[in-house]
């Protein structure tokens, strides 16, 4: 891995390579460059995970001429597809170096997060949504119960905007979550469930299920499950697998009648 990155930098395949480097026992994101090529000897691939693709997008916005290499887990690869579809990061500007991550025969456990996945508390199983559930299990809940369970989760929100800030595919200049006419300001919890549903709608055809948002949520709201549901609907309606390829999103060419109906939302939240 280190050798590969070194070679890429040396022969100019990439100008910068995004990976991790240990600092006092903490893996921190690091941009490796030709100028300090010896640092590649300290390159590590994890275990912590930052949004490297987001950093790549930020570099590309400033330096369209630079070639950017990065460690790419499966979800990173999906994010790169979506970022290319939405014209945020041209595919030819990035050079992903695959790392094995999602479950496989060799590696049965997903190491999405550096933390031991804690057992879900019994109270959360009683009142909230267990993040380990399948989407089908959530669908199987009675409407009012499902709504109450989601509202239990949402009312813990401390409006940190971390879910949006960390998300590789949240790149809008003016974010609807900060639009005072849409979502009231200055309150905790924020207007619920609107705050969370606005974001959920935006993730249709966009969220690549990397889990960074859930990982960054101080309130431990099972956001991945919520956006997973939204994208299951997208799959149902449009047969579109978000991030699986660079095929255009069903929402990227909205006609005069937007195809995004409120129906999917209602199915998730209120009956």
């Amino acid at each position, binding site marked *: 891995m280190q050798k590969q990155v070194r070679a890429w930098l040396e022969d100019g395949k990439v100008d910068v390579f995004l990976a991790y480097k240990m*600092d*006092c*026992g*903490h893996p921190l994101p690091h941009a490796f460059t030709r100028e300090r090529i010896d640092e590649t000897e300290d390159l590590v691939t994890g275990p912590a995970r930052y949004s490297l693709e987001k950093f790549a997008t930020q570099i590309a916005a400033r330096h369209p001429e630079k070639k950017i290499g990065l460690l790419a887990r499966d979800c990173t690869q999906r994010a790169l597809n979506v970022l290319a579809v939405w014209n945020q990061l041209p595919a030819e500007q990035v050079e992903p170096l695959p790392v094995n991550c999602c479950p496989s025969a060799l590696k049965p456990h997903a190491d999405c997060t550096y933390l031991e996945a*804690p057992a*879900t*508390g*019994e*109270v*959360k199983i009683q009142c*909230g949504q267990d993040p380990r559930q399948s989407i089908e299990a959530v669908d199987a809940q009675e409407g009012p119960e499902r709504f109450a369970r989601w509202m239990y989760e949402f*009312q*813990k929100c*401390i*409006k*940190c*905007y971390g879910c949006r800030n960390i998300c590789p595919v949240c790149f809008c200049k003016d974010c609807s979550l*900060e639009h*005072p006419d849409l979502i009231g*300001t*200055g309150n*905790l*919890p924020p207007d619920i469930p609107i705050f969370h549903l606005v974001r959920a709608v935006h993730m249709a055809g966009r969220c690549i299920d990397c889990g960074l948002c859930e990982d960054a949520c*101080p*309130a*431990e709201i099972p956001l991945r499950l919520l956006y997973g549901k939204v994208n299951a609907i997208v799959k149902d309606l449009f047969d579109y697998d978000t991030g699986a390829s660079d095929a255009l999103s069903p929402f990227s060419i909205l006609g005069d009648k937007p195809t995004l109906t409120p129906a999917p939302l209602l199915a998730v939240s209120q009956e």
Partner: protein
Amino acid sequence: MAGLAAAFGSGAMTNSYDDLETAGCFFVIGSNTTACHPLIARRIYRAKERGAKLIVADPRGIQLSSMADLAVNHRLGSDVALLNGMMHCILRNGWEARDYIDSRTEGFAELEAAVADYPPERVQAITGVAVRDIEAMADLYANHGPSALLYAMGITQHTTGVDNVKSCCNLALLCGYVGAAGGGVNPLRGQNNVQGACDMGGLPNVFTGYQPVTVPENVEKFSQAWGRPLSDKPGLTITDMVGAMLDGRLRALYVIGENPKLSDPDWNHLHHALKKLDLLIVQDLFLSETAQIADVILPAAAVAEKDGTFTSSERRCARIHKAVEPVGQALSDWEIISRLSTAMGYPMEYAGPSDIFDEMASLTPKSYAGMSYERLGLDGLQWPCPDSDHPGTPILHTQSCARGLGKFHAIAYQDPAEMPDQEYPYFLTTGRMFAHYHTGTMTRISPHLDAEQRRGYVSIHPADASKLDIADGDLLVLASRRGEMEAPARVNANVQPGCLFMPIHFGENPANVLTNAEAYDPLAKIPEFKVSAVRVAKAPEARP
């Protein structure tokens, strides 16, 4: 601080965040945790979802209340009565930790006698909390232990602040939770390095590590180390300084990184005092309200522009690293202080913060002596860390308290200094909101934080609003015995009827025009920020 030190011998959070998650029950009083310490609230969420109980006592409805097993709104300033009532119930039911009380505490008989006067019926009359709820609180706290008690400025910013804290300590000692994992008495610090400022001797009566200036050996040690004879006479607290400025005893003030004009409880009073100074030096990031009236203004470097350490609420001393050069000609505070000192004829020459840290650690044997930049790494260390092999201390007082035995204090309830009356019929309390910090100098210029709340406001209960014909957004005039100010109304049911709330961050609606500087805790000198009596009406222009 003073209260904690009197009870246990050390004025800091007894437990740490990781350890909080092991609590069987949380008792959160006077802390709007999700807004002011969100990442500590997260620990409460996690423990709660695992099955821990949660009791919330706050004069306002707060976000945590909606998750609580029991949430009560006690009347402003009635904390001591509420806590005494809980202890009364615990003793009446025999839920106290007898063995612990016998072996590790003193003063129990006095406490028992004092709380005997607080049967729940009487406490209900004082606090407005139902007898049934007081009993239930006592039950949850005593019988689902270990219970962690968390408090913030809602407990300390009162004339009875020290009494409030001592009462919290009494409760925790009574159930044997001090020194226990998942228990303890945990003050949450409002500003990032309050703990550090106190640890470093930023107090008139102690050197670093709380070594009193009145102990001759300490004065001797520091005089030697610093090469100057030092004074053994305790200095003035900030509250006394204001008085000394007014009568001319204090002529010059050097203010570093603070904006007392907005954080002091009485704006008019302080404004006069500062105006009387011969010399006011302010060193800050911004031209704050205080800097605007200074004679000399020194631009300081911000957090990403310098190296150093901060000490958090859980006594964790951790490193900050320089990421960028300071803006303009700004310099790190340590460089400015060194230059000024050298110009005053007392040379300070340090190669960098690491040298200063080592000098400090060598003079602070019990708490910081074992720390160095190298050992701190990125995780930091929790004091006490007395020698270089010591791993740091996540939980204080595990074997015995720092002062030996934990001390009970018999505390009687006292009304706040100012109660509503005919002329000023409303209670006013102050606090923070989630997107802003302290006097707002740092947060209000931050576009994303400013967007959350641009202006000050006054929260008023819908019942009071309709009585006074006030609608959401109307401009109100508030008046107290000290001054008058305007702010727009925000009608919401989180405040109790008869009670108003204002955030403290907004200089153009300075809440401290109204609050009470004359009234402060006699020991801790923390002013009564949380309770004052006001009257309120729609602003005249707003009338049709």
